[in-house]
C-alpha cells in the first residue's frame, strides 16, 4: 500500500514538478538564452498588469494560444493516425523517465523510499526499448499528413533516429561493463567512489571519456535539434510536423523538449554522477583535505536531489548553447558520421574497455 502511494506521488512529482516545468523552462530558456547570446532581448511583450516576468508571461500566452488555436487536419490525411501520432510521441518520452534515479534512498517515517519511479533490474534495456517508440510517432505523423515535405521529414527522421539509437546504446556499453550492472540506481551509487585518496570522484566522465564524446552527439541527434534537426530542417523541408497546428504541434514540440530533459538526465546519470555531490556521503561532507561537516539524513537527501536538478539545468543550458551555435548537417553526412565514425569508435571503446578491465583484474 505504501509502495503504491509512494509510486503515485513519485510519478506526480516527476511529471508535474520535474518534466513539464523543465520542458517549459527549456522552451523559455530557448528563447531568452538564444536571445542573450545573440545580443538581443527575446520575447517579452506579453504582460499581465504590467508584469512581464522576463518573458515567462509570453510563454503562458503562447501556451494558451496553442490550446485555443484551430486544430486543423489536412484533407486527404489519414485522420486516425494523424491525430494519434502526437500523443504517441508524448507518451514515448514521458514513460522513459521512469527508470532515472533522481535521488538516493530516503528513510521517511520508518519507510525507505527510492527516489526513482521504477528501479528495474534492466533499467538500461527498458529505456532503450521504449525510447524508440517516438520514431513511430514521427513516421506515422509525417506519413499521415499526406504532404511531400513532411513525408521527406519522416523518412529523414526514421533514418537518423534508428541509426543513432545504435550508437547511443553502444557508447554506453563500456560504462555498463565498468560498473558491471544495467541497473541505473546501482550505476549512480557506484559513482560515489573515489580515486587517488578520495580526490577524484569515480564519475563516468573520468572512466569513459571517449564514451561521453560519443554519447553526447548521438544523444543530441536523438533529440532532433540543430545541428541534427534534419527531420525538421525548416529551411530545407519544413519538417515532419508541417501540417500540424495548435495543441498537436505543441505536443510534438513539448516531446522534443522533454527529450532534451531526458538527455540531460542521462548525461547526469551515466557520466556526471547522477544525484551524487562530490565528497558528500550519507552522514555529511568528508573532504580529502581533511575537513568534515556532518549533516542530517534529510538534508543530505535534499542536497543530492538538488544536485541532480542543478546538473539537469546546467545540461539544459549547455544543450541550448550548442544548439544555437552550430549549422545543420546534411543527411548523407549525418548518416556517414554515425556509421563510419561514431559506431566504429563505439565498438573500439567497448574493446578497449574490455581489455583494460581484463588487465586490471
Amino acid at each position: 500500500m505504501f509502495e503504491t502511494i509512494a509510486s503515485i506521488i513519485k510519478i506526480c512529482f516527476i511529471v508535474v514538478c520535474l518534466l513539464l516545468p523543465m520542458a517549459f523552462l527549456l522552451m523559455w530558456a530557448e528563447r531568452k538564452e538564444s536571445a542573450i547570446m545573440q545580443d538581443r532581448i527575446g520575447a517579452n511583450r506579453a504582460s499581465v498588469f504590467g508584469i512581464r516576468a522576463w518573458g515567462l508571461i509570453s510563454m503562458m500566452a503562447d501556451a494558451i494560444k496553442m490550446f485555443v488555436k484551430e486544430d486543423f487536419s489536412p484533407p486527404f490525411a489519414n485522420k486516425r493516425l494523424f491525430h494519434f501520432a502526437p500523443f504517441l510521441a508524448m507518451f514515448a518520452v514521458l514513460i522513459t523517465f521512469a527508470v532515472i534515479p533522481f535521488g538516493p534512498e530516503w528513510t521517511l517515517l520508518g519507510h525507505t523510499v527510492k527516489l526513482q519511479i521504477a528501479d528495474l533490474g534492466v533499467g538500461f534495456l527498458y529505456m532503450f526499448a521504449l525510447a524508440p517508440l517516438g520514431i513511430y510517432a514521427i513516421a506515422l505523423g509525417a506519413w499521415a499528413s499526406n504532404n511531400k515535405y513532411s513525408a521527406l521529414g519522416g523518412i529523414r527522421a526514421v533514418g537518423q533516429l534508428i541509426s543513432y539509437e545504435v550508437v547511443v546504446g553502444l557508447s554506453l556499453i563500456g560504462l555498463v561493463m565498468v560498473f558491471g550492472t544495467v541497473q541505473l540506481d546501482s550505476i549512480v551509487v557506484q559513482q560515489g567512489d573515489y580515486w587517488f585518496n578520495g580526490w577524484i570522484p569515480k564519475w563516468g566522465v573520468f572512466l569513459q571519456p571517449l564514451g561521453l564524446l560519443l554519447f553526447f552527439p548521438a544523444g543530441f541527434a536523438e533529440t532532433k535539434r540543430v545541428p541534427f534537426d534534419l527531420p525538421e530542417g525548416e529551411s530545407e523541408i519544413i519538417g515532419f510536423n508541417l501540417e500540424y497546428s495548435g495543441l498537436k504541434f505543441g505536443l510534438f514540440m513539448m516531446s522534443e523538449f522533454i527529450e532534451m530533459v531526458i538527455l540531460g538526465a542521462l548525461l547526469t546519470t551515466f557520466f556526471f554522477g547522477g544525484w551524487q555531490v562530490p565528497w558528500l556521503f550519507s552522514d555529511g561532507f568528508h573532504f580529502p583535505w581533511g575537513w568534515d561537516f556532518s549533516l542530517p539524513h534529510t538534508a543530505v537527501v535534499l542536497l543530492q536531489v538538488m544536485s541532480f536538478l542543478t546538473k539537469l539545468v546546467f545540461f539544459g543550458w549547455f544543450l541550448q548553447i550548442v544548439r544555437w551555435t552550430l549549422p545543420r548537417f546534411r543527411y548523407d553526412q549525418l548518416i556517414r558520421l554515425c556509421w563510419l565514425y561514431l559506431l566504429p569508435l563505439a565498438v573500439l571503446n567497448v574493446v578497449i574497455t574490455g581489455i583494460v578491465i581484463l588487465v586490471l583484474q
Partner: protein
Amino acid sequence: MAQYVNHDQKFGATEAIYYPGIAKGVALTIRHFVVNMWFHLMKALRIKARPGAITIQYPDQRRVLPAALRIRHRIKLNEDGRLRCTACMLCETACPDNCIYIVPMESPEEVPEEKMPAIFEIDLARCCFCGMCVEACPMDAIHMDTGIAEMASDSRENLVLDLESLLKPGPIVCTGPAFRGKEILELLPHLKDVRAMEHQTQPEGSIYRVGKTNR
C-alpha cells in the same frame, strides 16, 4: 592600385575532426552570453552600464531619429506667420511619383507673394520619400523632417495629407472621412491658430520629437 591576390584556404587537423571547431564556436557564444548576462544583471540591479542587448523595444523606447531622415512632410510658415509656399509647382514637377497635387490661387491678403496654394495635397500612399520635392522647393517651404514615422492608416483617403495636416504634422487619424479639397478661405481662421501654435512650440529647424507626448 589594386591587385589580385590568391587566397587559398587550407584545412588542418583541427578542421578534420568536429570537436575543436565546435568547442571554439561554443566558447564564443558562451562569452557573448556571459558578457550580455552581466550587463543585463547590472541593469536589473539598477547599476548604470551599457545595455546588454542592442535591441530597441520599439513602442516603449524610441530612437531619436536623425535630422537628415527623409520622413513625413511638413510645410513651413514665414517669420510673420504666412505660408512660405507660393504654389510655384516645382515640387509637383519634380516629384517622380506624381503624389503632390497643387491648385494655386491669388493670395487674398496684402502680401508680397502673388500666389498661394488653394489645395496642397501629398498622397503618402504614392510617395516614395525620395526628397526631390524638398530639393526642388525654391522657397524653403516643404520639409521632410517631422520625424513622424508612423504613417499607417486603414484607408487610402486618410493617407492624403492636406494643407492643414502638413502645417500641423501629427499622427494620422485613422477614422473619419477624408478631408479633401477644402478651400483655403475656409481654412484661414483655423490657420491662424495653427500659426500661433507652431511659433510657440517649434523653433526653426528643430525635429519634432516622436514620443508619447505626440499621441
